[in-house]
C-alpha cells in the first residue's frame, strides 16, 4: 500500500499499464510536457516518449475517432478529454461509432478504447466545464461507464478499463484529484466492473452515491447515527455495468433508499437506479426512493450559485430523515 492522491493513482496506473503492454498509449490535449492540465499524465512522456504520450490538436471528435481506429486495429488507446464536457463535441464518435461498432458489425470487432477525463464542480468552471455527463452514456448501449470515488478505485477501475476490450468512459472528478488514500502497490490490482462497494453498512436507509457524494454520504451517516438512524452507503463505482444485486440486497434490508449525484436530477442516473429499485424491490420499500441531483439549471460560475444548484449535505440529511419518517 502507498498513500497517494487520486491523480497520482491514475498516473501510476497508466504508467504501469504502458510498461506492461506496448499497445497501450495515451493521447490528448496537453498530455505530454504539460502532463495534462490536472497532472494525470505528468512526466509519462519522459519514460514512454511523445509517441506513446501524444499531444493532440484541439479536435476532440478526431481524437476519439482516431482512438477508435487505433483500438480496432490492435492498439489500446487511452484518450484523455480535458473536460468531460468535451465529450459532447465528440458525441458522434463516442455514441454512433465507438459504442456501436461491435454490435453493428456482428460482433466481429473489439474496441478496447478508454476515454478518460474529469467532470464536475468545484473550480468555478461554469456551464461548459462543470457538467456531469454520465447519464448520456448510460443511455446508449455499448459503452461502459466507470466513476471512481477514491484513489484505490481510480487505480483498480482504470486498470480494468484499459484491459477491457470494450469502449469505456472513465469519468474522474476534478475535486477528487487532490484526495489522498491508500492504493495497493500491486501492478495487477484491479476492481472488477459491476461490483458496487458497500462503503458503510447500515440498517435503516441505503444511500447510493457517486464521486464526491460518497464522502458526503459518510458524513451524513455519522450525523444520523447520533439520531439513531443507521445509514448504509453504497458506491456503485460503475454505472454500466451496474451492480443491481448489491443495491437490491441493501434495500431489502433497509427498506429505504436515497440516490444522490452531482448530475442533473432530471433523467439522471438516479432515475434509472430508483426505477430499478422500484421494479425489482417494490415490496421492500417503506418510502418512495428519493433522488437528489443538480437542479435543472446550467451550472453557474459563482460559488454560492454553484452550491445552490448541486445537492448539499443538509439536503441529504433531510432526505434520509424523510424516508425514515423522522
Amino acid at each position, binding site marked *: 500500500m502507498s498513500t497517494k492522491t487520486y491523480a497520482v493513482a491514475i498516473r501510476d496506473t497508466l504508467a504501469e499499464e504502458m510498461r506492461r503492454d506496448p499497445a497501450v498509449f495515451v493521447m490528448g490535449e496537453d498530455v505530454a510536457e504539460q502532463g495534462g492540465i490536472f497532472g494525470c499524465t505528468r512526466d509519462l512522456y519522459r519514460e514512454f516518449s511523445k509517441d506513446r504520450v501524444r499531444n493532440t490538436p484541439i479536435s476532440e471528435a478526431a481524437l476519439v475517432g482516431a482512438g477508435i481506429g487505433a483500438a480496432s486495429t490492435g492498439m489500446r488507446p487511452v484518450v484523455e478529454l480535458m473536460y468531460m464536457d468535451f465529450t459532447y463535441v465528440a458525441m458522434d464518435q463516442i455514441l454512433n461509432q465507438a459504442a456501436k461498432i461491435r454490435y453493428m458489425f456482428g460482433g466481429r470487432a473489439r474496441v478496447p478504447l478508454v476515454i478518460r477525463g474529469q467532470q464536475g464542480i468545484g473550480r468555478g468552471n461554469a456551464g461548459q466545464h462543470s457538467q456531469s455527463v454520465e447519464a448520456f452514456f448510460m443511455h446508449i448501449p455499448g459503452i461502459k461507464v466507470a466513476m471512481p470515488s477514491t484513489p484505490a478505485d481510480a487505480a483498480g477501475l482504470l486498470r480494468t478499463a484499459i484491459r477491457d476490450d470494450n469502449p469505456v468512459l472513465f469519468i474522474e472528478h476534478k475535486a477528487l484529484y487532490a484526495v489522498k488514500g491508500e492504493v495497493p502497490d500491486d501492478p495487477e490490482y484491479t476492481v472488477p466492473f459491476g461490483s458496487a462497494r458497500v462503503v458503510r453498512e447500515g440498517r435503516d436507509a441505503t444511500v447510493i452515491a457517486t464521486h464526491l457524494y460518497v464522502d458526503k454520504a459518510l458524513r451524513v451517516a455519522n450525523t444520523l447515527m447520533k439520531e439513531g438512524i443507521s445509514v448504509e452507503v453504497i458506491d456503485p463505482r460503475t454505472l454500466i455495468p451496474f451492480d443491481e444485486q448489491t443495491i437490491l440486497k441493501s434495500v431489502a434490508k433497509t*427498506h429505504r433508499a436515497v440516490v444522490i449525484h452531482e448530475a442533473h436530477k432530471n433523467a439522471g442516473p438516479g432515475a434509472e437506479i430508483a426505477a430499478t429499485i422500484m421494479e425489482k424491490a*417494490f*415490496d*421492500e*420499500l*417503506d*418510502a418512495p426512493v428519493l433522488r437528489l441531483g443538480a437542479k435543472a439549471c446550467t451550472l453557474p460560475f459563482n460559488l454560492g450559485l454553484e452550491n445552490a444548484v448541486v445537492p448539499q449535505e443538509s439536503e441529504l440529511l433531510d432526505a434520509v430523515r424523510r424516508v425514515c*419518517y423522522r
Partner: protein
Amino acid sequence: MAYEVIMPKQGLQMTEGTIMRWLAHEGEHVEEGAALFEMETDKLTITIDAPRSGTLIKILRGEGETVPITQVIALIGDAGEATESAETKVANEQVPAQRIVATPAARALAARRNIDLTALTGSGPAGRIILRDVEAARGAPKITPLAAAVARAQGVDISGIAGTGPGGKIMKDDVLSAKEPAAPRDTLVPITGMRRTIADNMTASLREMAQASIRMKVDMTALTALREEFRARDIRLSVNDVFVRVVSHALREHPAMNASLTPEGIIQKRAVHIGIAVALEQGLIVPVIRSADTLTLPEIAAQSSDLIARARRGGLSPDEYRGGTFTITNLGMFDVDDFVAIINPPECAILALGKIERTPVVRDDAIVIRPVMTMTLTYDHRIVDGAPAARFLQRIKELAQNPGLLL
C-alpha cells in the same frame, strides 16, 4: 337470490350445533372468509366464517339456539336485496371503502403477519401506514372476535393479557381467566352441547359398566430424575407424558386392558390410542394421542402439548378427541391425593393420577423421603377381573419406577 347460510357439520359425529354468538349484525356487510358466528358442538366452540361476501340480510336462528346440521340459519345477499326485504333493518349508511395508503413494505409485512391494515393508524405523511406501524402492530393484541366480544361485554382490559392462541392470539379463555372474579351470586349456566354430552356419557358409563377401582403407590424418584434429564436437553415432559408412554407400553403386554365390550363380544384393540383428560372452562375434553405405543417420549411430549393447547382454545377437530382406547386423567395439580375416575366409554379402564408428595418410606430398613404418587385404576369388571387389572397396574408401577426399561 340470497345465499342460505346453514348450520355446518363439523366432524363426523356432529348432528346439531348451538349458535353462541353472531359476529355480524343484520344489514352489515360480511366478507367471505371473515368470522360470522360462534357455535358450540358437543365438544368444542368453533368460529364459523362467512361462506360468501355480501350483506347479512337476515339472521334466522338467534344466539343460544340449537340447530340441526344443514338447517338454514341466516341469509346473505347484496345490499339491494337487503333494502327490499321488509323484515330486515338495513344500515343504509354506505361507508365508501377508504383506500388504504400503505407502503409496499408495510403491505408485505402485514400480509406475512396476517395483520389487518384497516385496523392500523398510519404514522407516515397523510396517514400513510409505514413499516414501523405494522411492526408495532405485532405488539398490539391479536384477538379472536369471540374473545374481543367477551372482553367488550365484560369490560376486560385486554392490553395486559398474554394470548395462548397461535402467534400469541388472545382467546376467549384468556379473557375469562383475566377477568376479575365476579361478586358472588347464583348463575344459571345453560346446559349446552358440550355439558350435555359429558352428562350423558358419564351417566351411561356408570349405568352400563361394572366399575371397580384399585389403588397403588409408586415411587417417582427415577421418573422425576428422567424428567430432569430431559429438561436439561430442553424437552419438557409432563408426568402425563411419561405415563402415556408407560401405559401404552403396559397395554401392549396386557391387551385385555385395551378392549371394548360390544354385543358381538370383547374386542381387544391392536391400536393403542391414549386419551388425556383436559379440563376446559366449559367442560372436559379428551384429546387422543394416536398409536402412542409407537412414539418416543419427545414425540409424545410434542403431540400432547400441541393437542392440549389446541383443546384449550377450541382448535381440535372432532376426530382428534375421538377413538381413544384408554384414558389417563390427572388431578395432581389440584392437590388431589388420589381419586376414582369414571371410565370414558367404550374404553375398559381409566388411570387416575394424584399428586406427587414427598413421603417417608422404608428402603433397605431405613426411613427415607421419596416422591410418591398414588395411581387409581378403574376398570370394567365385565371385561377384566381384579387380578389381571392388578398385574397391569403392577407393571405400570414397575415401568414408572424403572423408566430405563422404556428407553
